[in-house]
């Protein structure tokens, strides 16, 4: 951010500082509620508030008991394993179908590509509760309601838009003469895809996959409709936990989820920089 130029007028100076204050407030409202959870999750008491001991930074005020509860309580463990079984499978489906759809829709000769794109992206735009209700009725008819595959398919549908958007974005910068060159050099379409196109759009595929994973991992509305007790995921357990037992274990779980999300997002950023370097867009 450049400094204030010497010729700035009075209003410009006011705006210059006001802009910084506004940015600070925005960040505060976005991040503070998340940050505050982290120390609270180490609370030695079963309260959602800071105890005097915690504020005085006394070691007695902190404990890992809520984490302990999370890793030993069968309800939480069941929920965690359900999430771990559902999210990767949903991600796999999202990535496979989303990548194929993005590649197909980036071909200029595909008819109705705009309309198709809009339909595929709609789960991201349509209010979740509406998608969830729709899926509930549809899955009940075809016998998927309350099943593992029902939840996986529903989450895959929610994740596909992310994959389509990120992969389409990488394909915009993709030089079509590279696939022609590969064909000209003797590679059949499958080899061309595997050796030339896929490695170059991989960053988009992976970041789309991470978004899809997080979507599934954090999702509560659809799973409440489509799932049954057997598919109770972490967010679902947190939701019921909040309503029924108000245990700070939720804060421990939230901290873990925030950490996972942060790590995944950092991974995305590292991958993006790596791909830019590979394409020679920024000096290595």
């Amino acid at each position: 951010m450049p400094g204030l130029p010497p010729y700035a007028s009075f209003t410009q100076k006011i705006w210059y500082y006001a802009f910084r204050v506004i940015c600070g407030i925005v960040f505060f409202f976005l991040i503070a509620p998340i940050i505050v959870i982290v120390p609270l999750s180490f609370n030695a008491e079963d309260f959602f508030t800071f105890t005097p001991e915690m504020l005085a930074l006394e070691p007695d005020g902190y404990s890992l008991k809520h984490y302990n509860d999370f890793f030993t309580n069968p309800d939480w463990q069941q929920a965690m394993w359900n999430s771990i079984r559902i999210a990767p499978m949903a991600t796999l489906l999202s990535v496979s179908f989303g990548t194929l759809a993005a590649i197909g829709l980036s071909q200029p000769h595909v008819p109705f590509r705009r309309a198709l794109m809009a339909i595929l992206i709609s789960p991201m735009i349509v209010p979740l509760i509406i998608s969830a209700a729709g899926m509930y009725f549809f899955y009940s008819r075809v016998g998927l309601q309350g099943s593992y595959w029902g939840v996986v398919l529903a989450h895959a549908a929610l994740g596909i838009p992310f994959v389509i958007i990120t992969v389409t974005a990488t394909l915009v910068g993709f030089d079509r003469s590279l696939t022609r060159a590969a064909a000209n050099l003797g590679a059949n379409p499958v080899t061309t895809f595997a050796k030339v196109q896929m490695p170059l759009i991989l960053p988009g595929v992976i970041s789309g996959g991470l978004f899809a994973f997080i979507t599934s991992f954090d999702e509560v509305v659809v799973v409440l409709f489509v799932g049954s007790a057997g598919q109770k995921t972490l967010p679902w357990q947190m939701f019921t936990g909040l309503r029924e037992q108000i245990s700070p274990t939720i804060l421990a779980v939230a901290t873990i989820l925030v950490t996972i999300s942060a790590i995944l997002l950092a991974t995305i950023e590292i991958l993006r920089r790596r791909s830019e370097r590979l394409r020679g867009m920024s000096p290595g």
Partner: protein
Amino acid sequence: MGASPTADNFVVFEKVQKSYDGETLVVKDLNLSIGKGEFLTMLGPSGSGKTTCLMMLAGFETATHGEILLDGKPINNIPPHKRGIGMVFQNYALFPHMTVAENLAFPLEVRKIGKAEREEKVRRALDMVQMGEFGGRRPAQLSGGQQQRIALARALVFEPELVLMDEPLGALDKQLREHMQFEITNLAHELGITTVYVTHDQTEALTMSDRVAVFDDGRIQQLAAPDVLYEEPENSFVAQFIGENNTLLGKVESIRDGNCTVSLDSGETIDAKAVNVSAVGDRTLVSIRPERVEFNKSRLMEGAHTLKAEVLECIYMGDVFRTRLRVAGKEDFVVKTRNAPDQARLEAGKVIELGWLPDDCRALDA
């Protein structure tokens, strides 16, 4: 179907037409035979259909009508990856995620050539373009000229018999371009490969090729060796596209022994060679090269017609003088004279008489 393959028709276009939208033809009735080992250039302005022809040969576009034969076999139904034709792309199309050596090994890998042989061939190809030490680099770490060499090496590494080049030197600076022109022609002749080269740069076409096909409006306007193309253009498009030419419009007065007299629109009469005119009274565009104009009356034929010309400006260009004159009402008549002791300097404002040998002045279609 074409005749059996001989040295003269390694690549054959037979009545090939191409239309992208089903209405307008981008390529209209193309017939062309390319000999084995020949360096043929497709030259033309953008939109003339030359690149489309190259793409049809590579297999990235399909011919709407007609047949393309490679070594006697029709290739319309063969996908690009089974044609075994090398190609240098306009933007080089090097794979950015692979090193130079991996780029070169790619065509060998997909042909399932063993590792040892592969490495040997990659090494030889890199040496051939004097890039031996660059195998471990990525394309983004190379300059434009170096990338160009790698693209060339990659197109040649699997030893194709036919190599296509789509304006490969367009992005290089002038000096490098001239150097690469020389290297590419040398390599092509040394290896005995057939080359089809597409460019819109006429100097490139003239200096590199065995034969040049001048494209315009989806047709070959003339197919000839560079010197023939320059000296004996068959129509007014070729005359104006290749090199510099002075053109004058007029009407054919008389035709005799292959020569004709033309009365210009401004009233003067000149001598010309009847190239593309058939009858007295035809409209014609006569064209004369700037370096073939003669001021010295003693060197002209007896009874030759001459034109009055007023010198407008004389530009010193080092080895030549470029003089702009007003001739027959036109102010863009250009004459080039060598910077030699025996040549008279022309000064602005001077009125002189000029003429030419009828052989040097060609009466073409108007």
